[in-house]
């Protein structure tokens, strides 16, 4: 917990890097129209806050909804694959292979097909997020001790009750782990989908800002996307610690007998 809340070393390093960037632009190392200085990005974050915020809300909605859809679908698919070995054998290689499909090319195809609305963005975000959640959830289910399943059988537990009391709880940490990994690709997916055809969103704003030479605003949208992904990761980490404290509990002091 402390390591998560006190990241002062990376903050110092980041400050140093931003300082170097600022000095480089200020001393004429680059045209500010091509590479805006950090303080120009900061003032854009403030001056364009209404515009950035309204576009952020759109992208955040796509990402959150997409991840939610992916998490629910991934849990369901992982459970189905866990229960039905034939399905698992058939689907697992396809899932791995599906990762070779380049998302930047998938996005315009979906936009062409489904239009400029929310749906194609949702699908792209859910597709890129789905994989990591399925894999980690399956790993959680596969890690269950087979002797525990035997034990439940000698207790006359039905397949459903074994799932409900043993397998489902054991799978949940995997859902969280996969979702945390998915956050990063989900934001990237949303941006690609917006660039393929949208009328709002931070990816759209970025795309619009470059030809207008509003590079500071373009960088400001990147900063917001990045901060959003970090915040989402932190919120998920916190939520996991609150809902599944046992999954990360270090062995504490134990009574002696």
């Amino acid at each position, binding site marked *: 917990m402390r390591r998560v809340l006190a990241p002062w070393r990376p903050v110092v390093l980041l400050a140093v890097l931003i300082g170097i960037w600022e000095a480089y632009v200020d001393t004429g190392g680059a045209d500010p129209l091509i590479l805006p200085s950090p303080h120009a990005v900061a003032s854009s974050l403030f001056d364009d806050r209404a515009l950035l915020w309204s576009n952020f809300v759109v992208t955040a909605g796509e990402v959150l909804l997409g991840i939610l859809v992916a998490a629910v679908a991934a849990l369901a698919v992982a459970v189905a694959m866990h229960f039905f070995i034939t399905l698992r054998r058939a689907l697992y290689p396809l899932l791995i292979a599906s990762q070779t499909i380049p998302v930047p090319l998938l996005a315009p195809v979906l936009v062409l097909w489904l239009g400029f609305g929310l749906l194609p963005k949702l699908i792209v975000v859910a597709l890129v997020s789905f994989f990591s959640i399925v894999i980690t959830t399956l790993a959680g289910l596969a890690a269950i001790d087979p002797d525990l399943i035997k034990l439940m*059988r*000698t207790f*006359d537990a039905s397949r459903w009750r074994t799932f409900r009391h*043993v397998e489902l709880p054991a799978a949940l940490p995997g859902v969280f782990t996969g979702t945390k990994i998915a956050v990063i690709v989900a934001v990237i997916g949303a941006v690609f989908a917006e660039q393929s055809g949208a009328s709002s969103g931070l990816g759209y704003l970025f795309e619009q800002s470059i030809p207008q030479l509003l590079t500071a605003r373009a960088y400001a949208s990147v900063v917001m996307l990045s901060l959003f992904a970090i915040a989402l990761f932190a919120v998920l980490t916190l939520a996991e610690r609150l809902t599944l404290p046992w999954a990360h*509990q270090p062995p*504490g002091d134990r*009574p002696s007998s």
Partner: protein
Amino acid sequence: MVAPSVEPRGRDGTRGVHVELVSRTFAGRRGLVPALAGVSLHAAPGEIITVVGPSGSGKTTLLELICGLQTPDDGTVRSEPAALMPQRDLLLPWLGALDNAALALRARGLDRTRARAAAAPWLQRFGLAGFEDARPTALSGGMRQRVSFLRSLLAGKPVLALDEPFAALDAITRAEMQAWLAATLAAEPRTVVLVTHDVEEAVLLGDRVIVLSPRPGRVTSEIAIELRRPRRRTAPELIELRERVYAALGMSA
């Protein structure tokens, strides 16, 4: 205290445990591995039999056959319903001690409130009062084994199949737990088949000790332990019986 309801007898009217000339072979990486070769043993209702044998003598297989988790390749197994207590405690890390102990009741379909209410007095009786909501990581090895034993006891089966229940404990805790198990079974009699590679444990706890040969497991001898309970592990009669078991295992004590 509500006693766990015990199922009266096996579906075919069997009483106790009857293993008759049972063989079991597994397909291993280098061909067939025979685990048991013609094993026969019997446990009368309420009897505690202990099975000793070297590693690989098919002890766990024997228990899984009795619990109906495997079927023999040859021979017959007839038994009243049996609940397993696995070698490792296998407590669920997300549940406290009380919910873990109540797992067998939840498995039968009791709701959480009723399952907890039924298990709570037992937890107290097993010296775990105050640890109801402690997760397994907060319990000592001995406490975890007691919760694990209680979980299997509350399954309400007439037969308990205990798989090296104390093998993972340190020597002092193990000795304490052996005395505890003897006292618990005296108060709460069950038909027990306990497998172990600890000869002292076998002699201390069993009404009868059954000695298995190395792989494939075969019964080499049966030694009745007609000592009054509670038993002292330092009693000369017990030490003598221990030496007989060692001799049956082909070791000079």
